[in-house]
């Protein structure tokens, strides 16, 4: 069989850059294969995708060496339109990919461009809508859809073309865990029904592995890959149950099929895991008592009688690190808008350090409560990194010298110091995200609210940012609130999670207890953690305690590693 995609000694350098982004790539993908390509941000994953779908070199020019065949043809010969008949791309930015005014039109977009007669289009759109389960939404506008629905429309929009290859660029980046799980299942179904070749580019490995894949590229089969330590070395998060087994000193064998916790053979691992559990230390309870941000019976609605939030009640203590979780559209963003003063609550009070903030203006609140938006592009207004980070201080009239000192310090903490004289545009998305966090941190807020702080970041950058947030939380005493649907984040870095579903607060508890409670996890569109499944399968009677101990152990390990690193540095 001929490979459907073949890279031979392939290198590519963007015109704007000094170093090639892809170097000596040799890769063959066979028809019908389902391949997962993993790698940290900036590793060239997206560039590889652009080479496959023709955007490189047609939209992003640069220098290419070696050979590349897509569907047996040289993309340079058949042009972008030629490639697009072979490869269907689902972009990470499903909103940008949504072109039509309604779902039906968007599904039909490619057909329209290919001069398909209207009658035929109706049939085809119906068929595809059925396939990706958006049949009921055909007349809806994009703003009426959730992220998951938009993504399904994107998938449908490329599948109407009967392409051989479906390319997914970070399909999980903007979805909550439950929706992400559904997307992965849908991709798998499509593959089974259509026999298409599937290429998924993703760094959330555990989630992407929810359904079988044939191959993971850092080039091995999944079961073998999982037993090695390659992933951690590459800055990719291995599934948590694998990590737990490794902590327990188990030597995992590929023969036990570790790809899915549900089907993995655990017989040989039960005993060591239980022993480890009994030995492992309990999590230390931190005692914090001074209230930082208190919300009392908050109520908000756009249209009277249809509350977006109601009976919201919680008390976040000074120095806590808390996550606010719930599915897209549950009311999390509305809550942060209320706290920052962008909206006025219909009922209830918000207290900062025990004082009602109702009378404070947005700007006055902004000095105490820093808000980092989800997309850095919503915040960055200066072309240069330094100016951007300095902006908040500049408008507050801080002296030049102090600005410089504080900006440099913040940039160093955020790992951006080497780029301080760069234009923002030269940075990757993840780096821009760090710039936007830096631009708030530089003002030393008391409470920091971050909307999806780790969206679109790989494990290495995720760890860096979260360690950094933890650092300022512990050392500067800043209270950190994160709005997220990243379960790793809530488990590993927060001691408390507030769960919102359909405008109501349904839980306020430790993440370990929430993620081992099926009812709550379901309601909030979270997933149970795989650690829970592992604990249950190994007959550990208190799964949430197991999760707690795992996290405590992880934190301890991480601290040891960090300390090691810092002594190494000071030893020089």
């Amino acid at each position, binding site marked *: 069989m001929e490979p459907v995609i073949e890279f031979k000694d392939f290198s590519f350098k963007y015109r704007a850059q000094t170093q090639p982004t892809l170097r000596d790539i040799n890769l063959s993908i066979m028809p019908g294969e389902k391949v997962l390509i993993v790698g940290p941000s900036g590793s060239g994953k997206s560039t590889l995708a652009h080479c496959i*779908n*023709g*955007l490189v070199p*047609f*939209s992003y020019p640069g220098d290419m060496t070696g050979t590349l065949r897509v569907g047996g043809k040289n993309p340079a010969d058949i042009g*972008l*339109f030629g490639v*697009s*008949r072979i490869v269907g*791309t689902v*972009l990470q*930015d499903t909103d*940008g*990919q949504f*072109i*039509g*005014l309604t779902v039906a*039109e968007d599904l039909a*977009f*490619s*057909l*329209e*461009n*290919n*001069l*398909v*007669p*209207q009658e035929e*289009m*109706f049939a085809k*759109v119906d068929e595809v809508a059925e396939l990706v389960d958006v049949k009921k939404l055909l007349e809806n*506008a*994009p*703003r009426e859809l959730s992220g998951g629905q938009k993504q399904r429309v994107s998938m449908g*929009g*490329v599948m109407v*073309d009967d392409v051989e290859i479906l390319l997914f660029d970070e399909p999980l980046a903007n979805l909550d865990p439950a929706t992400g799980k559904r997307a992965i299942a849908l991709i798998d179904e499509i593959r089974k029904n259509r026999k298409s070749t599937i290429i998924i580019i993703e760094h959330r490995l555990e989630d992407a592995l929810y359904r079988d894949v044939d191959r993971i590229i850092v080039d091995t089969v999944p079961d073998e890959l999982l037993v090695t330590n390659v992933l951690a070395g590459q800055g990719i998060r291995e599934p948590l149950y694998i990590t737990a087994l490794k902590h327990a000193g188990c030597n995992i064998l590929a023969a036990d099929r570790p790809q899915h916790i549900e089907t993995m053979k655990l017989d040989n691992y039960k005993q060591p895991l239980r022993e480890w559990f009994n030995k492992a230390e309990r999590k230390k309870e931190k005692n914090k008592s001074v209230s930082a941000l208190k919300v009392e019976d908050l109520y908000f609605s756009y249209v009277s009688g249809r509350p977006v939030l109601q009976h919201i009640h919680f008390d976040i203590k000074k120095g806590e690190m808390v996550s606010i979780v719930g599915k897209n559209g549950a009311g999390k963003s509305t809550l942060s808008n209320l706290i*920052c*003063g*962008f909206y006025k609550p219909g009922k209830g009070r918000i207290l900062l350090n025990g004082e009602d903030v109702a009378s404070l203006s*947005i*700007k006055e*609140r*902004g*000095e105490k409560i*820093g*808000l980092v*938006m989800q*997309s850095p*592009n*919503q*915040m*960055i*207004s*200066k072309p240069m990194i330094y100016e951007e980070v300095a902006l*908040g201080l500049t*408008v*507050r009239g801080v002296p030049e010298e102090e600005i410089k000192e504080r900006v440099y310090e913040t940039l160093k903490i955020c790992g951006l110091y080497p780029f301080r004289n760069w234009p923002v545009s030269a940075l990757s998305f993840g780096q821009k995200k760090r710039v936007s966090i830096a*631009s*708030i941190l530089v003002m030393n807020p008391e409470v920091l609210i971050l909307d999806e702080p780790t969206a679109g970041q790989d494990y290495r950058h995720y760890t860096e940012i979260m360690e950094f947030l933890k650092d300022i939380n512990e050392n500067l005493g800043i209270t950190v609130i994160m709005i997220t649907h990243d379960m790793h984040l809530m488990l590993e870095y927060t001691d408390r999670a507030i769960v919102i579903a359909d405008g109501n607060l349904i839980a306020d508890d430790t993440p370990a207890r929430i993620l081992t409670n099926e009812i709550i996890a379901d309601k909030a569109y979270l997933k149970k953690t795989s650690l829970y499944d592992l604990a249950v399968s190994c007959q550990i009677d208190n799964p949430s305690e197991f999760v707690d101990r795992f996290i405590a152990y992880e934190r301890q390990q991480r601290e040891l590693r960090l300390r090691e690193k810092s002594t190494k540095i000071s030893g020089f």
Partner: protein
Amino acid sequence: MSKILSYEEKDTWIHQLSGVTKLIFFLLWCVVSMMTYDTRILIFMVLFSLVIFKISKTRWEQVGSVFRVIMVFLIFNVVAIFLFSPDQGTRIYGTRTVLFHIAGPYDMTLEQLFYELNVVIKYFTIIPTVFMFLVTTNPSEFAASMNKVGISYNVGYAISIALRYIPDVQGEFTKIKHAQEARGIEMSGKASLLNRIKSTSSIIFPLIFSSMDRIDTVSNAMELRGFGKHKKRTWYMAKKMKKNDYLIIGLTVIFAVAALVFTFADGSRFYNPFI
């Protein structure tokens, strides 16, 4: 964000007309309304557009807030005309019938009142048709039908993208404004003009620059899905021109020609009741 006029699906024969029919009607209607100052025709047009407004089942709530804005602007303009040129009516109609003296050079004349009445009526010939056009025309079908009558699909699609993105851009703008306000950048207040422009820039720069990225993403996405591959394209939302469409277009053209002939028959675009 202010409420803006937008399409609402309803089942009236006006809704079912092709977008092009409504566009041709709207444009010719504008031309006639601009050209003529014949009060009789203007009054006929106001009455007729009110009828259309009624038939299209447009509710007052859909357009009320916008209507109030127009009224303010209208009053402002009418007063301005009087302040700048209290004898514009006399210049046009040739007579000067003083009703009462106000101050200085300002007399209230019957001619001026009549002229300004015409200006006001002119507004009212357009307003209901703008409402009708925006509220009854399905934007998706509109792009398709523009292409059907020979306008490049590129233009149609550009308008379609504009309509697709207006709500998104508005939402985005509000978000960015909030985030920047929290950082300490204020748009209102007693700041100097230059500072106001500066803080406006802090809010619109992220909006515009992220939109520039969006232009790249969207054009990539469109290109990946074959937009611009052929000289023509088909349309999912296309509607065939029906009997009613041809009928309305025909009647509109006849009306436009007749109205203009009637207006200019005496060599002047003004209807002069004073001679």
